[in-house]
């Protein structure tokens, strides 16, 4: 990649909260399968997506992430029964809050997969990265530059 293109193309920072029992393993499988997904995605392993709280999603965006992905187990397959469903509701809550403050609900999303679905993880990571790339940088960055 030339230095010129790296300057012009926006490379989003994506934080992915990945469940130990599914998405984190799926990311591992993706690696074993030599499937590539964007290096923009920084994975944080959590014991269950039910552990991911509203504040974690908010702080990730506040501290510079352009998008946050929550990756949990398929519906009905949560190791702790309903952690993924709780996460889904929290993501919905954060989406509404992000719309309220003008950051935009599209910057947070949830995906589900099983531990063996390396392909699904790679695809979700790529699609979300592209979606955020199209949206552009987190608007707080522009505002912070103006305020400085």
């Amino acid at each position, binding site marked *: 990649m030339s230095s010129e293109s790296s300057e012009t193309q926006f490379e989003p920072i994506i934080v992915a909260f990945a469940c130990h029992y599914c998405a984190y393993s799926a990311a591992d499988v993706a690696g074993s399968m030599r499937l590539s997904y964007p290096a923009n995605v920084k994975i944080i392993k959590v014991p269950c997506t039910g552990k991911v709280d509203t504040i974690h999603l908010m*702080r990730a965006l506040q501290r510079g992430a352009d998008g946050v992905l929550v990756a949990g187990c398929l519906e009905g397959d949560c190791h702790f029964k309903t952690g993924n469903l709780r996460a889904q509701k929290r993501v919905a809550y954060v989406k509404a*809050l992000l719309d*309220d*403050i003008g950051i935009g609900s599209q910057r947070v999303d949830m995906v589900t997969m099983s531990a063996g679905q390396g392909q699904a993880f790679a695809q979700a990571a790529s699609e979300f990265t592209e979606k955020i790339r199209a949206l552009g940088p987190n608007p707080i960055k522009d505002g912070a530059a103006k305020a400085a």
Partner: protein
Amino acid sequence: MITAERKPIEEIMEYVAPFKKILLLGCNECVTVCYAGGRKEVGILASALAMAMMKKGQKIEIDEMTLERQCDPEYVEELARVIDQYDAVCSMACGCGVQTVAARYPGKPVLPMVNTEFMGASEQQGVWAERCRGCGNCVLAYTGGICPIARCSKSLLNGPCGGSDNGKCEIDPSVDCAWQLIWDRLKSLGQTDLYSRIMEPKDWRPAGGGGPRKIVREDLMS
């Protein structure tokens, strides 16, 4: 508990707009239990406000703090050592907390971040329902432990109105008719005789109709 809900962000933004440095102040009591203004909600609102202001290109410094209780002077006193640093205190407590803080620090704007709603009980995780109006003269002994003041839409004292329909209230089919609940419970308790006991017109002065209420316990006063 006293229940509350966070005010809309837009309204909060208007409140904090004139200030450069604010203290977002939570309360460890009722508003923590109903997820409106405890330590966690303070963090979420601080983050949301910080991002909203950054997006606008405005700077605001937000510190977070949560008191054990905002409605007791001894806990509100803890603010004395830090309050001078702030242009305003944004309280996430109920109206009682906001007013206690405001009374203690007369020179400091104290702004409400939540709407205080009702005295309620938790029906299930995430659902709170009104259970008490604080009418000052409890009648639960005669009504099977179900309050007709808080739970009947008309606060009727002697049986249901004509709007009771299959156990539901005419205002909304999702609302139980309190008097149906009372009758069912009195029946199961074998206390239906209480139903025919006529309640006199209620004196609403202890409910607040006689002006602001106060409890004075001289045995406890210093």
